Structure formats: C-alpha cells, structure tokens
C-alpha cells in the first residue's frame, strides 16, 4: 500500500477535494442564479410564447450560443482579464468562479428553457384564464410544474461544472484538477492521478444519485 500510493499526500488530497467542492458549489449557485432568469426569459420571448419578442430572443439566444460554443479551456483563458476585474485575481478557487459561471449559466439557461417548454400549454392557458399576470404564471405555475426538469438540469449542470472545475487547474484554478496536473501530470505521479480521478468519479456519482432522488421526490405526474 505504502509503495503503491507512495506519492499521495492525503491532507493535500483532502484540501484539494474541499476546494473542488467549494468551486462547484459556488459556481453552481451563481450559474442557477443567473441561468434561471435567463432561461425563463428565453422561454417567454420565444416563438408563440407569452412575451414573444423576436429581437430580445435573438440577442439572448446569440449570447448563450457564443458562450456555449467556446471550448471551456479557451473560455478560461479569454476570461482572465474579466475575472481579475470582477474578483481581483484569476488564481485559486475564487479566480475560477467567474469562468465557471460563464460556462455553467448559459448551459443551465438552455436546460431551463427546454424544461419550461415541456410544460403543457393548457396549464398556462388555464392560469391565464384565472386572471394571473405574467409573474404569477411564471412563479405560480410554470416553475413549479417544470421543477423536476429544472432539478435534473441543475444536476447535469453540477456534473458539467465538476469537469470544468478540474479543467481550471490548467490556469491555476486549484482543487483536484490542479493537483492532478501539478503532481499527476507534470511530476509523473500516476498514483496521485488515479486517486484524483477516482475522487472525481465518486463525486459525480453522488451528485447524480442526489439529483435523481430529488427529481423523483418532486415528480407528481
């Protein structure tokens, strides 16, 4: 065992795992905070929807598409000056958050838009017929009805953010990815690489299980 995992410093691994957890947690929180309203707007301004607005939809959709089509590794680098302005540094856990949100929020926004489209139009019509305004339709009917889909979207986004967070190690982002690159790759410490990858796999598994359970819990169909 000693020889097999000779290079593994468990306190280092523990610290890196914590950093990954913080990066994913914070970036997920901000991705949801930004992505949810954007997703709702995408849905509402879309074709044949309540606030159909071709221009607004076009602009919003274009921004989302641009952010989603840039490979994350490039986004990480391109975002560096913006990140410095936003949080004062482009390094460490904090420096990783802005690019992670820039990658996660538009991704989540699309997932929100899709799950809102799954809501039966009849429910929107019925809510309108009751005399609801747009805000009441969104908060009282659309979001609760789409909740299982949105939770599934949060799960998928969280898992994507785990892999993005690992990638941010390349530009000094911290966490398990940073560990894997500095020790596993640059110093050829295969055991460190194996452990970090195994931890990431476990992390993703746990997120997926948690997400699936929540979806089941909130599904009333």
């Amino acid at each position, binding site marked *: 065992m000693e020889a097999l995992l000779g290079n593994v410093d468990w306190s280092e691994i523990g610290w890196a795992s914590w950093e990954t957890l913080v990066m994913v947690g914070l970036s997920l929180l901000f991705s949801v905070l930004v992505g949810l309203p954007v997703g709702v707007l995408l849905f509402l301004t879309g074709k044949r929807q309540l606030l159909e607005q071709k221009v607004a939809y076009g602009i919003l959709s274009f921004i989302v598409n641009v952010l989603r089509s840039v490979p994350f590794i490039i986004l990480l680098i391109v975002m560096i000056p913006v990140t410095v302005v936003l949080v004062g540094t482009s390094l460490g856990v904090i420096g990783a958050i802005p690019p992670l949100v820039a990658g996660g929020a538009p991704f989540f926004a699309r997932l929100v838009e899709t799950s809102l489209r799954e809501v039966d139009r*009849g429910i929107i019509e019925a809510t*309108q*017929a*009751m005399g609801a305004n747009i805000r009441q339709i969104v908060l009282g009917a659309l979001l609760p009805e789409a*909740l299982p889909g949105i939770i599934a979207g949060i799960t998928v986004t969280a898992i994507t953010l785990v892999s993005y967070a690992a990638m941010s190690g390349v530009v000094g982002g911290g966490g398990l990815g940073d560990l894997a690159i500095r020790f596993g790759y640059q110093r050829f410490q295969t055991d460190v690489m194996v452990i970090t990858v195994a931890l990431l796999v476990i992390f993703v598994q746990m997120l997926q299980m948690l997400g699936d359970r929540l979806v089941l819990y909130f599904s009333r169909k």
Partner: protein
Amino acid sequence: MIELDQVQKSYQVGGRAIPALHSTSLTIETGEVFGIVGHSGAGKSTLVRLINLLERPTNGRVLVDGENVTHYDAAELRAFRRRVGMIFQHFNLLSSRTVADNIAFPMKLAGIYSKQQIRERVAELLALVSLTDQGNKYPSQLSGGQKQRVGIARALACRPTILLCDEATSALDPQTTQSVLRLLADINRELGLTIVLITHEMDVVRRICDRVAVMDGGRVVEMGPVTDVFLHPEHATTRDFVFESENIDREEMREDLAHAPGRILRLTFRGESTYQPLLGHVARSSGVDFSILSGRIDHIKDTPYGQLTLSLVGGDLDRAMAEFDAADVHVEVLR
C-alpha cells in the same frame, strides 16, 4: 348577458390572414346553458376563447353585462377573468399542487382573500363536487371524472358569473360524462351561473343546453332553442350531428323506407303530448293502419319528446293528419 357583436378572428400564417371565425353575432342570456356544437376546426374553441379574451377578436366587440371587455386594460382584464370560470377537455390541473391547492390557486392569484376565507371556500367547493376526502391527493392520483370535478371546483372558486366549458366531457367515458353534466346542470340551476359549453357531441347539448349554435367552417350555421334545432334541424351540418347522436345510419334508413308500404310520416311529440295514447286513438277514429319504422322517446334537457317514423296504410289519411295536428303533434310527410 354576453353579446358577441360581429366578432371575427383570423390568424397570420406566413404573412397571410387565415380566417378562423367569420363575422359572428350572438347573444347569450344570463343564467342559460348555451351550447356551441361543431366539428374540430369549426371555430368553436376560438369563439369561446373570445369571451374571456384568451383570444382577441381581429374585429368586433365582446360585451359582457353591457361592458365592452375588449377595451379593458391589463389589470381590468385580469379582474374580469376572475368573474369567468373555465374548464378544459384535459382538465389542465397543476400536477405539482394538491387538489385543495389547485382549487385555492385562483383565489391566491386574486390576492384579495384571507387564508381563512380560502380554507373555508375550498372545503365548501370540495363538498359541492363530492370530493371532500380527496383534498390532499395530487391530480395524478385521481380518475378523469374526479379531475374534471376538481377543474369545476377550481373554476368556481372566485364565484364567477359565467362558466366556459371547453369540450369538458370529451375525454371522459359515457358514465362519467353523465355525472359531470348533471353536476353542471345543478350548478347552473342552483348558482344561476351562465354556462357556455362547446362540444362535438350533440348528446351533451341535448342533455343540458337551453339553446345551441351549430358551427361549420368558422360560421354559425344554425342557432336556436335546443328543442327546435334538435327536432327540426335545418342545416346539413346540424342534421349530421343529430343523426350521429341518435345513431341513425341514413343509408339503412332509406332502405327501410323503400320497403315500407303506404305513406310515410314522421311525427314529433313534445312535452305533455309525448305521454298521450294518441296513435291508437287516431288509428281507430280514422281507420288507418300503421307500422312503426323507427322511433325514439327521450328528453331534451327537461322536455320529454318522441319522434316516430310511421308507414300508414288505408283509412282516412287526411283525418288522421288533422287529428295529429289538433293534438299539437308536428307532422312531416316523408313520402
């Protein structure tokens, strides 16, 4: 009273205006059950949605109790919609809310009721639709008929004066349809609610409507009291609906008539005359022999009626006709 004054609706499809409803005027009296019957695509969904402005008319006015509702601003429109309940073919209940919360939903949206008021009203409505024990269930745990009852309770929550029914029984089996229609008739009678219902089943109209408009191709082709329209349909579309609801195969009927001897008459009895022992009496006094080729005795809402197709042989035919006439029976000579 609901007045549609030369309302017309067309949709823009690829830069062209496709008419869904041609200029239509009709008046629905307070407290009546008004049926709109038509095939899918006849424009009846559009027509009913003009009343609560889920669809805006391209032209024309919608007046409810004398007020032009098409001029309402957003807030006035929302307040107006609370006075108009609506139920749907697929119920459109919120799957994420319990039965009680679904019924409470319109009251919560209105924002003018206290928690206490909402709780009491929900209990009252659950009792009205016989679902008192089901308040904590989710819609997915209910049968179709129960779901529609929840829909009705929800539509009544804010004490509307008008109830719009969009194919409310079309997704239900015949027995459930009956019980839902009975509930609607009770509500109409007890609460004095004006009900506008659209359907493609003439049978629904026959059971609960006072008046009916028949639609075809975006136009109202026939309109009047259900007894008149049902017993003496004028327009081809109306006839199709009536025959369909009575399960009459017209080809078969034509063949049957071809084999029958003598004159062929169709007698229509309405109201009290339905129960009179008229046929035997007329046969004896005029010496006419008859055989019944087809017939039906039933109710249109609360009015009993009978419709018999007879072949008559021998005797004094003119006298028989005169006696039918005197007894207030409508006679049509088919051959």
